[in-house]
């Protein structure tokens, strides 16, 4: 049965199903249960994660499988690499992706490379769930979108869901996957609702989805920016322009053909990504499209991204930092040389 639940509930449900299915699946992270060894709480959780995403799981699975950790990212993320390599299937939470600074070695030099360095004789079925995204007034060290950085590292898979349905299916696929996967959750999406089936299902990593078909131009959105693209696409309809919105869903592996097939049809490509623009997933997709789809293109590829600056705190600045439907309309109008579009 399908019903409307939030992005956060979809993730919670995926974790619950994965833990029921496989006893090797454990969760670890700061306050993923909360209130460890607080007598009066007994098994009732204090927090269930800083945003409540893992709430309720400790009651069902107990503290042996839901491990609250000290603020020791290098310690527990590093440990998760080898619990994975030695027979467990851990889901470690890195509360904010910005905190990767505290444990990059464990992810980049250990987890990502073990298998290759050992000649294929190890596997690291580790999932790292982490929060990203601006728009929460959380300032420069709690708002970044660092999936591009992980995508650049061979040995790591990277997933960025944009809907509750995708979040559940992709998280279950990530946990089933035998390689390290970093699973990005946009903090501003947690309360967004969508249709999600009740049971266990997976969405293959590396398979994008057309979120809206169209024939006039292709807009690739990353994570929450899929929604920005969809909003812009609705407004473009009034001008008789049909935009196709493509959601790659995972960035590594990247579904190149869904993007190339789309631009083969539309001949125009815009990439909307809220991460910083240099050496980013936006430049990566642009390069791929220019390399493999140059002949399909009738206009230069355009990227709508954050500027080359950290995320500002002030709402007045953060709002202009992020991509918006208006910014997309402006670029489309330049691309199609019709000024009336911006005024829609």
């Amino acid at each position, binding site marked *: 049965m399908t019903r409307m639940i939030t992005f956060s509930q979809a993730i919670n449900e995926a974790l619950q199903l994965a833990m029921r299915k496989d006893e090797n699946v454990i969760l670890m992270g700061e306050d993923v249960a909360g209130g460890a060894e607080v007598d009066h709480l007994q098994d009732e959780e204090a927090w269930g994660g800083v945003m409540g995403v893992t709430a309720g799981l400790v009651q069902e699975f107990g503290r042996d499988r839901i491990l609250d950790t000290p603020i020791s990212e290098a310690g527990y993320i590093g440990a998760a690499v080898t619990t994975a390599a030695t027979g467990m299937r851990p889901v470690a939470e890195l509360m904010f992706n910005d905190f990767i600074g505290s444990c990059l070695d464990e992810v980049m030099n250990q987890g990502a490379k073990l298998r290759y360095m050992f000649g294929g004789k190890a596997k690291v079925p580790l999932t790292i769930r982490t929060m990203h995204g601006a728009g929460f007034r959380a300032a420069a060290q709690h708002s970044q979108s660092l999936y591009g950085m992980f995508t650049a590292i061979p040995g790591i898979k990277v997933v960025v869901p944009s809907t509750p349905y995708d979040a559940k299916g992709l998280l279950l696929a990530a946990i089933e996957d035998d390689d390290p996967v970093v699973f990005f959750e946009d903090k501003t999406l947690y309360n967004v609702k969508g249709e999600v089936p009740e049971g266990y299902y997976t969405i293959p990593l590396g398979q994008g989805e057309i979120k809206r078909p169209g024939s006039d131009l292709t807009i690739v959105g990353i994570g929450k920016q899929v929604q920005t693209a969809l909003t812009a696409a609705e407004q473009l309809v009034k001008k008789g322009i049909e935009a196709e919105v493509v959601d790659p869903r995972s960035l590594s592996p990247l579904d190149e053909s869904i993007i190339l097939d789309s631009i083969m049809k539309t001949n125009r490509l815009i990439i909307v990504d809220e991460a910083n623009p240099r050496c980013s997933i936006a430049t990566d997709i642009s390069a791929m499209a220019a390399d493999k789809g140059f002949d399909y293109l009738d206009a230069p590829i355009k990227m709508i991204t954050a500027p080359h600056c950290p995320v*500002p*705190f*002030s709402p007045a600045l953060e709002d202009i930092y992020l991509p918006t439907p208006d910014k997309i309309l402006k670029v489309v109008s330049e691309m199609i040389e019709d000024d009336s579009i911006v005024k829609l």
Partner: protein
Amino acid sequence: MKISEEMVQGITSEKAKWMYQKMCEIRMFEDRVHELFGQGLLPGFIHLYAGEEAVAVGVCAHLDDKDSITSTHRGHGHCIAKGCELDGMMAELYGKATGLCNGKGGSMHIADVEKGMLGANGIVGGGFPLATGAGLTAKLKKTGAVAVCFFGDGAGNHGTFHEGINLAAIWNLPVVFVAENNGYAEATPFEYASSCTNIADRAEAYNIPGEVVDGKDVTAVFDAAQRAVERARKGEGPSLIECKTYRNYGHFEGDAQKYKTSEDKKSHVEELDALKTFRDYLIRQELVTEVDLDEMERSVKEAVEKSVKFAEESPLPTAADLTKDVYVSYETPERGEQ
């Protein structure tokens, strides 16, 4: 409360007034921020320092503008104790252009380098090496300055604790590491997360002095910090002070705090309150008169209200500010039209 029955060396009448004033500023600022946040007027994450005033004030009482401090996500108290202006602080929390960081940082990155306040920090454990670096400058330039690292009990479990303190110890740097052990890191108790009875016990491993003090007693903090700061200024190296304390509010605004017991909460907020006990001490020791204390409280309340008004009336930053100050200089040659 075992706040010193005797006069504490160094707490002169003038010093005492400064200390009580700063403690009031912190308490009233935080209580007001709590209200403003509740009314939906402040964006973002806010972590309040109320309850822990004695730590920041007892330590900063020994510092001046040339000394540096590194702070935490719970940074308003450190700012105030280090001399930051309330107007600029409040404006920063509102994200206004007149804020201490021009609205770029907010509560979690509030800073005032001219006052030696090297920033609140969004990264737990971020402060250890940063304080060590400021201590290195002081040593190399022979400024006589010290650097103080305030950190939480949770931060003590981050790897940077070891690296920062060990480095300061082998280089004999003028740094004071001040643990604010309020019993919890978010909802995780210190006892669960730390395999030590006291954070200060770890000092022994670095061959530096370590001391546990009642962090609700500003005279006790003052006393311990006096020794540590003097030692640092004399070139004898770093120290570690652990202040046992309690945060009156939740981890951040909106935390239901189910992990706390109501008895603890009641006793800390009502009986062991750091302001109340210091006030009693000052009257008992005849260091400040009740009339003066009342007058100070009144004027601080006014100053806090003034800061709110200042913040509310201040302009927001504008689009041109967005990409300003990423670098000191950064030239991208414009490509001419062809």
